[in-house]
């Protein structure tokens, strides 16, 4: 009998197309997702060398980072010239190289990491890459998914493989159940709070345990999405009945006998008993609290009930980093996180832009109003999420509460389009990065769950969802 394998080992082994003596492998790629920002130079490279896209049928493109989210965006004049050029370049490249393409005008357009699963492109056991670090999202299906740079995008386009060495295995187990008010977002942020943003470097994380099993597919995507924020190359969750149910019937999911064949194979996608992990972290689900970031790194995270830390509480290079972060964020050590006043709320992104996220936020907002003077925005993760939210009456709840109801895109998560914070503005955001300048020059970001963001919109400050009525 062969040695017990982790889920990562199994997916890896099934995709090695070539292995050199030193262990450098060519890993075969099943799905290549492409967006407008990190791909133009790759297509240009293909043109310059006369190369083709090896597997256009496995390559899916959608513009998301740059696109306006205003209702009038069908008019190209709503885009700045450089954004328009990038989106047009993707239009042209998708057509010229024969890729699957969801243009801005298509209702299926949206954030690439939401479109992939939604359309059934992402399936268990696959290797998925994209020129975007949040590709980790797709790991929720038990697929090995990670971000790559533009040179690697070109490499995958030309060869359908990636030059890789195997990472180490890390297990993150969340035992027991979550308490009320605690979400997938709080799990993933709390894990980063424990590991730090470099704790996962060199590893692929497998998330497991009862609390992970109890999450929906959408919650699992939220968890895996931020694996990269912990430094991990990818996050994985073994597929189960929920996964299969989610995939079944999606436009590009297998059908008929192929479905039966796939299902048989997918049921083998789990970590064998006694398989070796190089690092194991265990967190009790019931210990996780609704969480929020206070600094400028995702590891700067605390329960909402905590106070702002002191730089002196830290060691090494982190002391100066915290000093800088507190100055940037305009926060005083010792003050309560729940006293921090905000002026902007952003609900959306590949972390929290799916229908369940909008449901959670709308449930908080129903019959309530956004506090006077606040700017609050919902940006659905895809046109289909937007349509479903309208059908379920969620859109009306947001609009009645005083939220802007936008078209799909990455929007204020990275503020490449006009959705940006002004200098000094402070945002409660469901996105994934609180870096300096991320949401706008000198803008200040607090990461939290959709329900917490909605509550903050009503109270005008960071709010413990458990106290919110």
């Amino acid at each position, binding site marked *: 009998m062969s040695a017990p394998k982790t889920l990562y080992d199994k997916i890896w082994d099934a995709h090695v197309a070539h292995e*050199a003596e030193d262990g450098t492998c060519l890993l075969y790629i099943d799905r290549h997702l492409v967006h407008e920002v990190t791909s133009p130079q790759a297509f240009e490279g293909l043109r310059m060398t006369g190369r083709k896209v090896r597997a256009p049928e496995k390559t899916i493109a959608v513009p998301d980072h740059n696109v306006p989210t205003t209702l009038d965006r069908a008019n190209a004049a709503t885009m700045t010239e450089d954004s328009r050029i990038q989106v047009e370049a993707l239009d042209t490249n998708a057509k010229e190289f024969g890729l699957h393409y969801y243009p801005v005008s298509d209702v299926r357009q949206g954030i690439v990491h939401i479109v992939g699963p939604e359309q059934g492109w992402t399936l268990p056991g696959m290797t998925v890459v994209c*020129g975007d*670090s949040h590709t980790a999202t797709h790991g929720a299906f038990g697929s090995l998914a990670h971000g790559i740079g533009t040179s690697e995008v070109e*490499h995958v386009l030309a060869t359908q493989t990636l030059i890789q060495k195997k990472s180490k295995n890390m297990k993150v187990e969340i035992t027991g159940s979550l308490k009320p008010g605690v979400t997938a977002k709080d799990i993933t942020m709390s894990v980063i709070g424990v590991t730090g943003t470099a704790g996962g470097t060199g590893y692929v994380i497998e998330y497991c345990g009862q609390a992970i099993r109890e999450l929906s597919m959408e919650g699992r995507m939220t968890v895996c999405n931020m694996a990269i924020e912990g430094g991990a190359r990818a996050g994985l969750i073994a597929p189960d009945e929920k996964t299969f149910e989610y995939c079944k019937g999606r436009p590009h999911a297998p059908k008929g006998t192929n479905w039966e064949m796939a299902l048989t194979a997918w049921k083998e996608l789990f970590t064998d008993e006694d398989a070796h992990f190089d690092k194991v972290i265990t967190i009790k689900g019931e210990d996780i609290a609704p969480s929020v970031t206070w600094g400028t790194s995702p590891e700067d995270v605390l329960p909402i009930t905590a106070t702002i830390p002191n730089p002196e509480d830290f060691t090494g290079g982190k002391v*100066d980093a915290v000093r800088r972060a507190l100055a940037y964020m305009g926060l005083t050590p010792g003050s309560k996180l729940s006293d921090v006043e905000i002026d902007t709320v952003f609900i959306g992104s590949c972390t929290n832009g799916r229908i369940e996220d909008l449901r959670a936020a709308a449930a908080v907002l129903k019959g309530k109003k956004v506090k006077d003077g606040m700017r609050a925005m919902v940006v659905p993760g895809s046109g289909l999420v937007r349509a479903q939210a309208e059908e379920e009456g969620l859109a009306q709840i947001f609009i009645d509460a005083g939220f802007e109801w936008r078209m799909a895109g990455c929007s204020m998560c990275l503020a490449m389009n006009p959705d940006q914070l002004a200098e000094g503005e402070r945002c409660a955001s469901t996105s994934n990065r609180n870096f300096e300048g*991320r949401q706008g020059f000198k803008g200040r970001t607090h990461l939290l769950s959709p329900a917490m963001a909605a509550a903050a919109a009503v109270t005008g400050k960071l709010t413990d969802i458990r106290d919110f009525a």
Partner: protein
Amino acid sequence: MEKFQNVSGVAAPMPLVNIDTDMIIPKQFLKTIKRTGLGANLFDEMRFNRDGSEVTDFVLNKPAYRDAQIIVAGDNFGCGSSREHAPWALGDFGVKVVISTSFADIFYNNCFKNGILPVVLPKEAVDVLMEDAERGSNARITVDLENQTVSATDGTEYSFEVDEFKKHCLINGLDDIGLTLQKAASIDSFESDYAAKAPWV
């Protein structure tokens, strides 16, 4: 890709931990469809005021460091986004080597595709080199890829690890894609076996 040459000179100290790719090249500069010209905006929001004037105390604006080809950085350099614009900006500015205790994975890989050598050294070594770097023109750090060493001003040598294949590509300026296409037969045969086993993919 240009062949990597050994580097010897002034190193810019950037002791801040977790310098992310948003800091290295802010998003407003990602709207280019070219790989070149990004050096002008390297570390833009740290390096320039809103009116375009230089932030005088930012390290790369100080006379000693304006042409630095080496950066000595705090832990976890290059974390965050996968944007290859980060090494493009560093390379375009003239940076050839970044030394730190750790790098984010995607950034680390991206460097090698662009003729930049990221060097991982233990904290004690980085601390010495950081002190050296802070002495500006009074110090000189030498990076030798062939022998995998970094030498401090006083001549102390620190050895570093680097993947043999990556080193080979960097020293010889090799194009990954060309190398992989030499193995096209392996990819072809993998693909046909795999299609039989997993026809739904």
